[in-house]
């Protein structure tokens, strides 16, 4: 069995920011997202992304945002979405 990688608990989680979410039907376990955004995305033993809260991440801080955007556009199956929070900071 492969070892599970879980996201590290960085301070960025607590800051306000857009949230990443994965569509579990569309996701085909390519794993690019975990490479590009290791602070928020781990992979389970079958290669599917584990976000901070199951299917969605915590708020993504400004420092991580470029990586999150890169993950969204790199995902071969368009399974990732970056949603902006409703209340502007």
């Amino acid at each position, binding site marked *: *069995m492969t070892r*599970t990688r879980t996201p590290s608990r960085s301070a960025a989680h607590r800051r306000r920011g857009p949230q990443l979410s994965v*569509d*579990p*039907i*569309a*996701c085909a*376990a390519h794993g690019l997202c975990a490479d590009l955004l290791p602070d928020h995305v781990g992979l*389970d*033993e*079958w*290669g*599917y992304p*584990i976000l901070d809260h*199951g*299917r969605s991440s915590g708020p993504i801080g400004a420092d991580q945002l470029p990586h999150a955007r890169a993950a969204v556009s790199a995902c071969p199956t368009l399974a990732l979405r970056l949603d902006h929070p409703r209340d502007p900071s």
Partner: protein
Amino acid sequence: MTNARVDADRLPPDVRLLAPWYADQRPDDLAAHVRRHGPLPEAGAEELAELVDDAGLRGRGGSGFPTAVKLRAVAARRPRRLGSRRAVVVANGCEGEPASGKDAALLHCAPHLVLDGIAIAATGLGASEAILCVHEGSPGLEPLRRHASARHDPVPVRIETVPARYVASEESALVQYLNGGPPVPTTAPPRPAERGVGGAPTLVDNVETLAHLALIARHGPTWFRALGTPDLPGTLLVTIGGALRRPGVVEIAAGTPIGDVLDLACGPTEPVHAVLSGGYGGAWLGLHDPATLRTPLTHEALRAAGSVLGVPTLLALPARACGLAQTAHLLRYLAGESAGQCGPCRFGLPAVADDVAAIVHGTPEARRAHGRLARRLDLVAGRGACAHPDGAARLARSALRVFAQDLKQHLAGQPCRAAAGAPVFPMREPSIPHLPAQRARPGTGARSR
């Protein structure tokens, strides 16, 4: 629950939906239905939502979601501009849960109450279509078609058959199937209320929910709340099964304690050591804990007891059966019913079923399997597009908790003889509808609570 007997004087006077059955053990045709319940009332969408809101009606399809919220969500999307679509009403009568027979029993005994509920919702929402979904090959199909064609509803009800698979009757799967796609769940959003059948705002409600709605529209919220609890008003159809003398479907006031509900089955056929509540994606409750039989049937009370109300089913596990082995059978079944679309469900459910099976066999692998099981359960719950994997994880977790003593034996390499036992609960659709367990006498009068 040992030595339980039906005591006619203690029967709860809570028969509403199944009244025809208790009166003369015959389904109501349209004429009998109108004699019993009076003519079909009408209400606009907001009036209806208000009635349902005041009544506190919660969905009977498993989640207990407030019905008024869904009604309002669909009503809010009714056409305001040219070209937008009129609402669609879908009645979910598929009953994908193999252990449950309540929807089949309701559709058999009181088809016109369900059809009334559909008609009231469809008229109120100004719907263009009304669809009643049941499983393919369902024995109740032909009578249902006859009952539907006897009516003159403004929006005629179309009856559609859906493949008899567990996840095919999840609401987004129903919508996708009705739209010509495969009967498997889709990713939400959009929810059916936003974009459902034909792209129209769609109300998907369980058939029992709609039958209650038909009675609320006639008798009002105060009447509805005369039975049940403040949080879960009204009656519930509950399937009771397993090692019971008279298994079947009963109608009880919500909040009735588990022990009283099981008493309606005239006691167990043999010693019983646990009860599975909420269907195969539910959770075990141990009878070694005296609090179990006192637990009221409500969403909140069962959750606090470590289980769920879900689709109300109470299955009595005979003491001769190994709870862990039975859990392994159920997990294998649930894994086989995965739509296979989401990785954590497709790969996780078989992995979890394998781990529990390894524990059951008590092989040297058992300890390793037990070690990784907790982590795997965290990996499947909440990570699918629908709640199917969550139910499997809940069942497995409850087994580890309720059968903790047995678990120790299995991990020590000493599984009981029952570990090799065959499944004791049904694994496929019943071929005939479960008929309500007859009571000695129909309940009369009103019970004060």
